[in-house]
């Protein structure tokens, strides 16, 4: 029972940050049909920005609770700046090109952004443990857990709820769905598609940044951060179905729990289990377990 609860909580914690990052990736894919490799860099930039300022503010003697504000601010600033600059500066000129070529362009961007991190933040790892220390720890299932890690699950739930509300209950969401289903139709209906693209990309980038910023206090923020997370989120969106928020949620829960199970019961398979699932899903259900319905075009 203790083991079960522990695996569940470990898994959900891992799923949570994967979901936040993947939600951004999948929204961008759903609307713009861009598989954005540079998304890993948004995550890394979010983590670095948050960790850097949490440390700076703490050194200046500000209360540690500021950390939470910094996390949110870091995600928004990173998403706004990187999202806007990349969409307007580069991607805008590529929409008529081949999908795969756009993936490659984002890979080039990824390489560039990774090194700008090194130049901007240096190579020393950052530790922004203050928010985690602030929230203390509790005993759950016979072991001690940090409360901060548990709040991660709540934040992911909030993000999921927010996305659902935005898509289904607002006028914006209706527009977005119109563009997702049929771009040309959207244009002819008078939707400002370029604006939708820009805002979507920025929104996705903010989610990528938020994933990084929120996880930052619990990890060592060091170079190479984005390399692993991007393939993990690829796995998540593939398993769940590319372009679907619900899919990203299911995908991250499956992958998070499987990985936690592996670490506890069979540590040797921890790394490959994620990708084995991804490959199996691609082989038997290439559209993913929860792909959005595809309209038929005549």
């Amino acid at each position: 029972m203790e083991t079960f609860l522990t695996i569940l909580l470990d898994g959900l914690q891992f799923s949570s940050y994967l979901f936040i990052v993947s939600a951004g990736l999948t929204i961008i894919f759903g609307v713009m049909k861009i598989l954005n490799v540079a998304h890993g860099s948004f995550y890394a930039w979010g983590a670095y920005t948050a960790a850097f300022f949490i440390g700076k503010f703490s050194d200046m003697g500000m209360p540690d609770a500021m950390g939470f504000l910094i996390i949110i601010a870091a995600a928004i600033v990173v998403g706004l700046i990187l999202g806007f600059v990349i969409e307007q500066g580069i991607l805008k000129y590529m929409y008529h090109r081949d999908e795969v070529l756009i993936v490659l362009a984002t890979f080039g961007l990824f390489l560039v952004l990774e090194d700008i991190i090194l130049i901007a933040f240096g190579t020393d790892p950052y530790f922004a443990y203050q928010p985690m220390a602030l929230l203390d720890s509790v005993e759950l299932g016979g072991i001690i857990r940090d409360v901060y890690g548990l709040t991660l699950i709540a934040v992911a739930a909030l993000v999921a709820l927010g996305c659902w509300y935005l898509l289904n209950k607002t006028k914006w969401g209706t527009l977005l769905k119109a563009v997702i289903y049929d771009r040309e139709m959207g244009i002819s209906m008078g939707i400002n598609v370029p604006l939708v693209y820009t805002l979507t990309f920025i929104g996705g980038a903010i989610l990528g940044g938020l994933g990084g910023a929120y996880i930052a206090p619990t990890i060592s923020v060091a170079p190479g951060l984005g390399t692993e997370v991007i393939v993990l989120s690829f796995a998540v969106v593939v398993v769940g179905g590319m372009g679907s928020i619900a899919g990203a949620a299911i995908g991250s829960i499956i992958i998070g729990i499987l990985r936690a199970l592996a670490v506890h019961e069979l540590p040797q398979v921890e790394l490959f289990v994620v990708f084995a699932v991804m490959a199996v899903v691609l082989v038997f259900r290439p559209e993913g377990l929860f792909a959005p319905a595809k309209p038929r075009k005549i």
Partner: protein
Amino acid sequence: MLEDKTSKFVLFGGVLIILAGAFAPNWIVNQFMFGFSRALAIVGLMVLWRTGLVSFGHAFYFGLGAYAVAILDIQLGVTDVFLRLLAGALVAGLAGFLLGFILRNYRDIFFAMLNTAISMVLFGIVVKTESLGSTDGFAISMSTIFGLAPETKYPLFVIITSVGVIAALLVNYYLKTTYGRLTTAIRDNEIRVEYLGFSVAHAIHLKYTISTILAGGAGALMAMSLGQVDPESMINWTVSGELVFVTILSGPGNVIAPFIGSLVFEVLRTYAFELAPQAWQLIMGATFLTIIFFLPGGIWSLLEKLGGRKNGK
């Protein structure tokens, strides 16, 4: 088979490079060995790319080829350069042929992603398995040629260059056959190709298998030139990205392009790393973006333009 301009150029260039290599300093010979080893995989990716397929997971076959050499070396003490090359190409080619039955039905991003997934499965296994060298990988003993252990790297360089020449000639020939020509046609309209009485699945399967044999051979040659294999620089997804990067850099225009592109890549990387060790990825990424934006035909198209101007066309 050898009448066309490309074949003549490949033969002539190969001989010239082999002769020049005898007088070149070691580090330049090294650059050529690394460059030409990688070029083999690029030739394969180029064949796929012409059909509109981009694999973001060919490090799987590259890694299989490299690890085949390592395992043969450690388990059986096989050091012969030809046996090693053959093993690498065969293992990768067999895997590619079998997986091809599945992959030939995939296009676009799904094709790219399934390849990524497969390569990452291998990555996860190798990294976590101590008997496969885990993160460290293996050192590979010097290759022998028919039982003789060469004193210098030059013989291996000659072999790699020759293998490159043969591969380039064969692929060049293949691209002129009917199935080989089914590239742009498939990319543009598969149904039309089917109506013409060709099997798209078969055509793609063949191209895929060719690309995996070449990638495996490339991995084997790279392992021998470097004397080392490890998962991070042989199997991880970033390696697949690197391979695609060189493919785009080279351009799909001609089988010679991958060899030139790989050399440029090797030199670019060496100097980027020497001059700006903290910014070499940035330099590579920026080059990549520049190529995608301003030179969609890669270096080859640039050479063609220059050549065209000289001829007054």
